[in-house]
C-alpha cells in the first residue's frame, strides 16, 4: 500500500508538470479570443497561475488534503461534486459494457478454443476481429442510426430523457458499442487461454479418467483459462472507469471521459488532476481485486 501511495504521489507530480509544460494557457481559454493581453494577465493572477509551479503544486496538494479539489477553470463549477456526478454515471456504463463483453466473449472464446481451426473457430475469429478492429465511433454511429433513428427502439444519446434523470434504456447502445470492442479482445484471450489449457497434461488426465467432456471443459479448462482473461478485464475496467472517451462523446453520455477530454483541451488543471488521481486509485484497487481473484482461480497462488 505504501508503494501505491508513492506511485500516486509521483503520478500527481508528473501530470501537474506535464500539464504546465504543454502549450496553452487556461486563463486564455477561460476568457476567449476577444480579450487583451492585460485581461489575460489579470486572469492569470486571479487563478494563481502567475506563481511558480512548485507553489501552485503545493497549494493544490494542501487543498487536496483538506478535501478541496478547487473549482473548474472553464466554468467555475466545484470540481469534487462534478467528479462524483460523472463517476456515478461512468460506473453503470463500464459495468454494463463489461457484462455485454463477457456474456459474448466467454462462450465464443470457449467454443473457438475447444474447436480450433474449425469453421466455428473461423466465425468466432471473424466476429472477434470485427470487435477489435471496428472503430468505436463507427460502431456507435451505426447502432444509433439503426436502432434509434431507423427502428426507433432506443434513444440516440444521453443519460435519460432531456431534463430528467437516468433511464436504463439510455445505457443499452453505449454499453453495446463499448462492449463490442472489449468483446473482441476478450474473445481472443479466452480462445488462446482455452487452446493452451486444453492441450495440457492435466486435461489429458481428466479425459483419461473418463470425465464427461463438458465437465472437463468447464470445470478444469475454463477456470485455468480465465487467469489471463482476469488480467485483461481488470485493465479494461480500470480504463473504462477513467472514462470511455469516444463512446461517451458519440452517445453524449456525460461521464468521466467526456469531462476529461474537455478538461485537457481547456487545460483545466484542477479537473485533470482530480480525474488522474481517481483513475490511479481505481487502478490500484482493481489490481488488488485481480490478485484476490487469481488466488481463487489458482490454488497455487498465495499471498503470504
Amino acid at each position, binding site marked *: 500500500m505504501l508503494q501505491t501511495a508513492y506511485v500516486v504521489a509521483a503520478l500527481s507530480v508528473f501530470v501537474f508538470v506535464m500539464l504546465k509544460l504543454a*502549450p*496553452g*494557457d*487556461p486563463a*486564455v*481559454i*477561460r*476568457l*476567449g*479570443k*476577444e*480579450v*487583451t*493581453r*492585460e*485581461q489575460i494577465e489579470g*486572469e492569470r493572477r*486571479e487563478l494563481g497561475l502567475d506563481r511558480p509551479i512548485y507553489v501552485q503544486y503545493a497549494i493544490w496538494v494542501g487543498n487536496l488534503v483538506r478535501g478541496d479539489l478547487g*473549482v473548474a477553470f472553464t*466554468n*467555475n*463549477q466545484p470540481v469534487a461534486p462534478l467528479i462524483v456526478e*460523472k463517476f*456515478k454515471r461512468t*460506473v*453503470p456504463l463500464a*459495468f*454494463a459494457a*463489461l*457484462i455485454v463483453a*463477457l456474456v459474448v466473449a466467454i462462450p465464443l472464446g470457449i467454443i473457438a478454443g475447444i474447436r480450433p481451426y474449425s469453421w466455428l473457430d473461423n466465425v468466432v475469429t471473424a466476429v472477434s476481429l470485427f470487435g477489435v478492429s471496428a472503430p468505436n465511433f463507427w460502431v456507435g454511429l451505426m447502432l*444509433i*442510426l439503426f436502432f434509434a433513428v431507423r427502428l426507433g427502439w432506443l*434513444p*440516440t*444519446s*444521453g*443519460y*435519460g430523457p*432531456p*431534463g*430528467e*434523470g*437516468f*433511464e*436504463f434504456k439510455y*445505457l443499452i447502445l453505449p454499453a453495446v458499442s463499448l462492449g463490442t470492442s472489449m468483446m473482441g479482445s476478450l474473445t481472443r484471450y479466452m480462445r488462446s487461454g482455452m487452446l493452451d489449457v486444453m492441450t495440457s497434461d492435466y486435461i489429458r488426465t481428466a479425459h483419461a479418467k473418463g470425465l464427461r467432456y463438458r465437465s472437463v471443459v468447464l*470445470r478444469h479448462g475454463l*477456470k485455468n483459462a480465465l487467469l489471463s482473461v482476469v488480467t485483461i478485464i481488470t485493465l479494461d475496467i480500470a480504463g473504462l472507469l477513467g472514462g470511455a472517451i469516444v463512446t461517451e*462523446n*458519440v*452517445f*453524449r453520455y*456525460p461521464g468521466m471521459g467526456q*469531462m476529461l477530454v*474537455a478538461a485537457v483541451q*481547456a487545460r483545466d488543471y484542477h479537473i485533470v488532476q482530480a480525474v488522474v488521481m481517481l483513475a490511479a486509485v481505481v487502478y490500484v484497487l482493481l489490481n488488488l481485486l485481480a490478485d484476490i*481473484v487469481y488466488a*481463487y*482461480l489458482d490454488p497455487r497462488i498465495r499471498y503470504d
Partner: protein
Amino acid sequence: MRKNRIREILVGLGALALLGTLACTATQEVVKEVEVEKVVTQEVVKEVEVEKVITQEVIKEVEVDRVVVQEIEKPADPGLLRVGNNGDISFLDSHRSQSGHDVWHGSMLFDTLVFYDRTYTTAIPGLATGWTLQPNGTTYDFTLRQDVVYHNGEPWTSADRLWNYDRCIVALKEKSRCGTTLLDVKEWSAPGPYELRLELDKFNVVFMFHAGNPREMNKGNVESGDVDTNPIGTGAYRFVEYIPGDRLVMEKFVNYWDKGFLAIRPERAVILPMPETQTRIAALKAGEIDLMTDVPFNALEDLDDTDGLQLLRQTGITMSYMTFIMNTREGPMADVRVRKAMQHAVNKEAMHNVIWFGHGEVDCNLIPSKMWAYTPITCPERDISAAAALLNEAGYNAGNPLKIKYIPEPNNEMFVKMGEVFKQNVEEIDFVDVEIEVVDTATWLDKVWFGVEAVDGWPNHEGKIIHKEYDIGDAWYTRWPPDPDGLMQSVLRAGSENGPYLGNNGMRYYNAEVEELFDLGKSTLDKAVRKPAYARIVDIVVNEDVPLIKIQSMPRFYAANMKVRNAPMTPNGYLDFRAWDYDFSR
C-alpha cells in the same frame, strides 16, 4: 472443493453485474422521487399562471415587438423545448460569458436594458421603457421599468443597474470582456429609483447597439458566489439545474414582467451539449430534440428533405464572414507582396462549392451586399501567374522556395478542409510548399491568436517580444452590431504599429489611415460621410495591405421540428429568443 470455487467465480461475476444494475436502479429511484416533486411543482406553477394570464388581460402593455406575438397568442400549455447545442456553456455568470454557447441561457435568464426590432437596426424597450439622447450627444437618460423582479423575488431598481455597470466596467475590467463594449461610458448614475443616466466620453453612432449590456444580474447572488451554481436574473426563465456536459434546465419565471411574451413560451427549456454533429442530427431525426444548432453544410439538403423537420436560415444581413488571416509581422507574410500573391492564388469558388456546397456569397468585400454601406469593388482575380510573379519579386523562386505554415482553427473539420484546398491552390506554384499543422484550441491560441513571449518576434505596446508561429490561418468572424463599424473595427484596429490590437486582430494589423477612417465613421450619423469612409477601408484591406483574405459570407443554419415557429435569426447568427415562439399543439 473445486465445485465451490467455480461457484465463487460465478458469484463474483454475478456480483459485478449486480453492482452495475444496482447503481442504475438506485439512481432511478432518486430520479423518480425528484420527478414526483417536479410534477407537484408544475401543478402549482400552472395555477399561478392562470392567475397571471387573467391579470395580463388587464395590464397588457403593447410594445413594438409584441404586436406580431399577440396575434398568435395561445394559452400557456405545458411544453418542453429541447435544444441540441454544439457545445457546453462556459459560464453561468453572464458577465463572464465568452462563447456563443452562452447565448441561450444568457438571453433566457438575464434581461437587457434594450432589445432590438426585427430589422436588428433599432433598439426597442427592454428593462428600459424609454430613453433620450441629450443635445450634447453624449448623455443618455433612460427610464426604467417599474414592475421588474429578480427570480428570487427582489425588486429591480436603478441601484441594481448601477451595480451591474460597476461590476462590468470596473471590477471585471481585467477579467472579462463584459465591459469592452461599454468603453465609451465614462459615468453612470441614478437620478431616481427608476431613472438612469449614462455619460459617454464622445458621441458613438453604434452606442445603442451596446446599450443593452451588461445583462442584468443580481448583486447578492454574485457576491455570495451562488451565481456559478444557481444564477439569478430578471429574465423570462429561471434557472433549475446545470450539470456540466449534460444539461442546463430552465423553466418559466411566472413573475416575469412581460406576461404576453411568457404566454407563448414552453414551460421548460433544456439545453443539451451535443458536440458530435452526427449525434445532434440523429437526435433531431429521432424526435429527441426540437432544435439543433450549427447544422453542417453537408447535412443541409438531407435535413431539409426530412419530413417533419425544417431548416432555419438567415434571411437578412449576415454579419459573419470567413477569412484567411495572415501573420503580418513575422515570416514570409510580413511582406505585402507575398500576401497579395496569396490573394491571387486562392480559389474562392472552389472552396465555396466543395466546402460550403454553394451556400454563402463569395466576395472580397468585407461589407455584405445587403448592408447600406456596401460599395461594390473589383476583386483581385485568381491568377497563378500573377501570384508567382509577385513571389518572384519578393525573392522566392525554385532556388529559394517559399514555405508556409498553415495552422487551422481547431474543433471544426471545415477549417482543415480550407487548409487542404489552400494548400492545393497555392502549391500550383512550383516553389511553394504549405505545411498544415493541426493543433488543439489551447495550442492554437498560443501559436496563432495571442502568440507567446519569445526572443524573436514583434514587440507589442508593452515592449514584450511576441512570437506567433503561424504564417496563414483562418478566422470565422461573426460580429455585432450590424453596422460597418461593428463588422470590421475589432478585426482591423490597433492602437499603434505595436498594438494594443483589438480582440479579433490576430494578424496584428495596423494602418494609421484605417484608424482615422474608423474614427470618422463612428463620429457621425451622416451616411453620406460614413459610406465612403468604410469603402476606403475595404479598398485598403483588399488592394493595398491585404492582412486577410475574405472568402465569403457565412450564413448560419439551424434545424428544428415543426414545434419551433417564426424563428428569425439575428445578423450575427443566433436565433432571436425574443422573437420566435413554440407550437404547443405539436
